[in-house]
């Protein structure tokens, strides 16, 4: 690029910008995060192993992983499907749908929980009453938790896949179809390989978001000890119950999972073509 010939700031300006920015990020993010790591390992591995030995912690971690995996799978299928519809087809209401896709990012997790409660609550919900008569419990059970998690992570896959689909165009897909491939073959042989990294990227981001969801899941879970508490809720209850080491241990595990996710994305990003 032209950065070699680029006009540069005078050295003092460059240095002060660098120092201000680094200090801000250090004080706001890096230092606090590193303290949590330090508190977790203050007594070696005891905090982690004690926490992991508790049945309700293990149950919560298992529930968190299960809910997150199911939610990511749902978002993967519908995310790729909706992206294809938005980019490759014309239909009435397309612009509205494309604008609405981003809505979950701006809605408070608590409002997401409330919204699901109003529709699926077994006693008062719009559909909840009928569903519970049919024996299907959504709220205060895992289906509700999965729905809340799918809701909050919904735009992440779509936001990654749509720009790539627009970029690659559809000449190859048309060629494939004119050569007699059916829609599924075209998708598997032509479309999927070219959007592969965008999909992976979106899935990893959605996974990070799903593992850490707290507010929305808290509202719909009913917070029943040992049954419907996720790892994030364990952090809250342990901290408020003056079991700080356990709270730090679970928080550390969650933080590790999310940091691993963004590092993976960071490594993948350059290979997916840098923005342009």
């Amino acid at each position, binding site marked *: 690029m*032209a*950065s070699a*010939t*680029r006009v540069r*700031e005078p050295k003092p300006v460059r240095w002060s910008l660098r120092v201000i*920015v680094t200090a*801000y990020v250090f004080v*706001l*993010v890096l230092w*606090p*995060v590193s*303290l*949590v790591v330090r508190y977790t390992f203050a007594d070696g591995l005891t905090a982690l192993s004690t926490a992991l030995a508790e049945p309700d912690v293990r149950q919560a971690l298992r529930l968190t992983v299960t809910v997150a995996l199911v939610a990511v799978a749902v978002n993967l299928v*519908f995310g790729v*499907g*909706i992206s294809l519809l*938005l*980019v*490759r*087809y014309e*239909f009435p209401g397309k612009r509205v749908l494309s*604008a*609405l*896709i*981003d809505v*979950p990012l*701006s809605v*408070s*997790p*608590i*409002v*997401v929980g*409330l919204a699901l*409660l*109003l529709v*699926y609550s077994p006693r008062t919900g719009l559909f909840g009453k009928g569903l519970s008569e049919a024996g299907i419990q959504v709220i205060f059970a895992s289906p509700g938790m999965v729905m809340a998690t799918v*809701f909050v992570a*919904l*735009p992440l896959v779509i*936001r990654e896949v749509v720009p790539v689909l627009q970029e690659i165009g*559809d000449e190859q897909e048309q060629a494939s179809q004119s050569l007699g491939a059916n*829609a599924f073959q075209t998708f598997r042989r032509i479309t999927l390989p070219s959007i592969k990294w965008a999909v992976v990227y979106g899935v990893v*981001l959605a996974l990070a978001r799903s*593992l850490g969801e*707290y*507010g929305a899941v*808290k*509202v719909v879970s009913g917070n029943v000890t040992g049954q419907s508490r996720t790892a*994030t809720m364990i*952090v*809250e209850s342990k*901290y408020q119950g003056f079991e700080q080491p356990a*709270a730090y241990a679970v*928080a550390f595990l*969650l*933080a590790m999972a*999310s*940091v691993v996710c*963004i590092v993976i994305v960071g490594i993948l990003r350059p290979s997916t073509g840098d*923005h342009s």
Partner: protein
Amino acid sequence: MSLTTTTAPGRATRARRPTRNGSLSLTSGLGLGVAMLWFSLLVLVPLAMVVASAGSNGLGGFVGVITDSQTLAAVQLTVLQSLLVTAVNVVMGTMIAWVLVRDRFPGKRVLDVVIDIPFALPTIVAGLVLLSLYGPSSPLGVNVANTRYAVFLALAFVTLPFVVRTVQPVLEELEADVEEASASLGASRLTTFRRIILPSLVPSIAAGAALSFARGISEYGSMVLLSGNLPNHTEVAAVRVFTFIENGDTASAASVATLMLLVALAVIVALDIIQRRVARRG
């Protein structure tokens, strides 16, 4: 310029018209139906129900809930702190993006990754993380827990990436020759920044600010442990909604939730207008 496509990720203008005739075949029509049904059951109907139950006690009921002094205090605090944090993000976010794109120093890649941590970190963990440095057992001796500074701090943490990540790609695409021309015509570096660089960045800064404000209005998880949720003091709007839900008062919860949706929407629309104005002028 490809500014409009890069400023609002996800809402990229779909300039490229589908070359295929675009009509739906049986399979894709079925797919569309399933996708729309899924989206409606998950997102549209529930959100519509929030607005509907906000109005279930009539307009008077809605106004009654949102003008209650505790609710009003919570909403005011939330809006004020979100505005403050967004202002800080506009300045700091742009500076961070600038350093990440234009500067070169060891550890820059680490800085780039660290910016994403607040986005990926679970919000309850974010609260805990901030408590460890700014809470009762702070190694710095600073304790902001249960004060309004805690609300500001939590929002500054969770909204850090937004402006950075919207400005960064635009700054990367900026052509160097315009700046060189400006410099060779005798403009100072500051003038060049103010007259040449900043105008091209404004749309992306506005987009980032909108995301940051909307996130600030809706934040819940990072407050739980950090702000103490003291009524009329550090209680934010989302916490107020949660309290209403816990007490089984879903109509009041829906009223405050609707107000939050309206505020977020108003700001997003306002910033979109600013962005369009500037883009047209630039």
